[in-house]
């Protein structure tokens, strides 16, 4: 963010405090998706494709209004359409804008072995640097939301950037700008949480959704995309949103204890080799007489 990178620290010939000093608020950014006011118009999908200059993505009819089954390497933002029958038999269309969640503790970043291929900015945006990507696809297995997608042609992995190019200029992401119902909001995480909780309370108090709540899963340290859900106790209804997303155990083990165990085994092996050499010396060649060989 430009305001964040150009924050005034000292001012020459200036009496008193520096304007804005100590009033700097937390500037982790967040996107708020109020699923209760989404009408499924897909304006955000088109805005995403157009802003990021993505090519036409061929689709086929699949017995649903949903554009495609899941996001693609060149289609980062997808509204999931879920027809949900309530207990009283009435129908609800649960629509969820599916994109990168920009986790505070990203599973993709933890799993990635390439130096600098995945970075997290101080404002919370998780961004893939395709020029440093080695195409191993470990980020795909590290993501609990099935977001990073592999491009077979470039052998790189792509996903939503939360419009870093726009956000760094002080603009909102393209999807937010396109939303006609005001179901999408963008701002500091702090503000978005306040807004989300206000909306959830409104749904509980006035709209007969006693289970309404905010989705900001702590299993991945909170996310940069938070949802207001009609029924926060059953996020799975919204196209398989995990109720408690975690970085997969294998990634955790392999990047944590197993990594050190591996390092220990390697260093230990080398030390053992050296000690063995010092103690017993080089292996001596034993001459064995060849039988039946005439000089």
């Amino acid at each position, binding site marked *: 963010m430009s305001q964040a990178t150009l924050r005034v620290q000292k001012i020459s010939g200036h009496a008193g405090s520096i304007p804005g000093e100590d009033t700097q608020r937390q500037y982790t950014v967040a996107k708020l998706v109020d699923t209760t006011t989404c009408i499924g118009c*897909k304006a955000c999908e088109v805005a995403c494709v157009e802003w990021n200059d993505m090519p036409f993505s061929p689709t086929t009819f699949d017995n649903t209004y949903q554009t495609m089954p899941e996001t693609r390497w060149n289609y980062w933002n997808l509204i999931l359409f879920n027809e949900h029958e309530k207990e009283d038999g009435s129908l609800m269309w649960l629509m969820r804008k599916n994109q990168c969640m920009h986790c505070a503790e990203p599973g993709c970043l933890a799993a990635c072995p390439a130096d600098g291929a995945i970075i997290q900015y101080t404002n919370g945006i998780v961004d893939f640097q395709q020029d440093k990507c080695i195409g191993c696809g470990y980020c795909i297995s590290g993501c609990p939301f099935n977001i990073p997608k592999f491009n077979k042609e470039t052998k790189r992995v792509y996903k939503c950037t939360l419009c870093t190019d726009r956000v760094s200029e002080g603009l909102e992401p393209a999807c937010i700008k396109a939303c006609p119902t005001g179901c999408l909001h963008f701002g500091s995480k702090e503000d978005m949480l306040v807004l989300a909780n206000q909306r959830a309370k409104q749904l509980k108090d006035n709209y007969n959704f006693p289970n309404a709540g905010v989705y900001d899963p702590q299993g991945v340290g909170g996310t940069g995309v938070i949802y207001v859900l009609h029924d926060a106790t059953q996020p799975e209804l919204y196209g398989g949103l995990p109720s408690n997303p975690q970085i997969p155990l294998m990634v955790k083990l392999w990047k944590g204890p197993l990594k050190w165990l591996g390092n220990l085994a390697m260093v230990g092996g080398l030390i053992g080799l050296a000690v063995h050499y010092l103690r017993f010396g080089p292996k001596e060649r034993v001459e064995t007489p060849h039988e039946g060989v005439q000089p």
Partner: protein
Amino acid sequence: MNAEGVGRLFAPLGAFADGPFPTFYEPVESPVDNLIHPKQTNNPIAKKFKSAADKYGSPKDGFDIVCTTYRLTEHYHYWTKNNPMNVQLVPEPFVEISEEMARERGIQGGDRVKVESARGFYIAKAMVTKRIKPMQINGKTTYQIGIPIHWGYRGIAEDEGKTAKTPANMLSPSVIDPNAYTPEYKGFLVKVTKV
């Protein structure tokens, strides 16, 4: 409140072609009779085209399904079928049918169905959905289907031969409201068969 103790209704003279006050009429093609006006089911002065193609069907002839047409948020009339950005959002025309009707007729989502009215036919894939429910009319289960109108003639999918080139309004009747001149494209009768 007026002096006489009841409310008044006012309609300017000559404002309505079909009487001083609007009343309820069934569509020209309807599965039921008009309960308010048993002798006059539909509007007697509705404007009707009178060509040989303007025929009407009734449940007796096997046209027992109510059909409606509508638009989608992703498309705009018949223009956007030429715009890749809109075509990727909704690539093909479809016919929305209820789960109950699909079960009864053995139709799966994605099957091609032929929708036939007294005037023409339309072939597209079936979208089986919970959103359209069968209606109970006079104690009888009546199915309804819905067709978005955005395809036909030429477009990206049509030119690639992926979809039928005929428009959905091949089905609808050319019957026009005498006051508002709105064509009756929102309610007519069809047959549905799997192809």
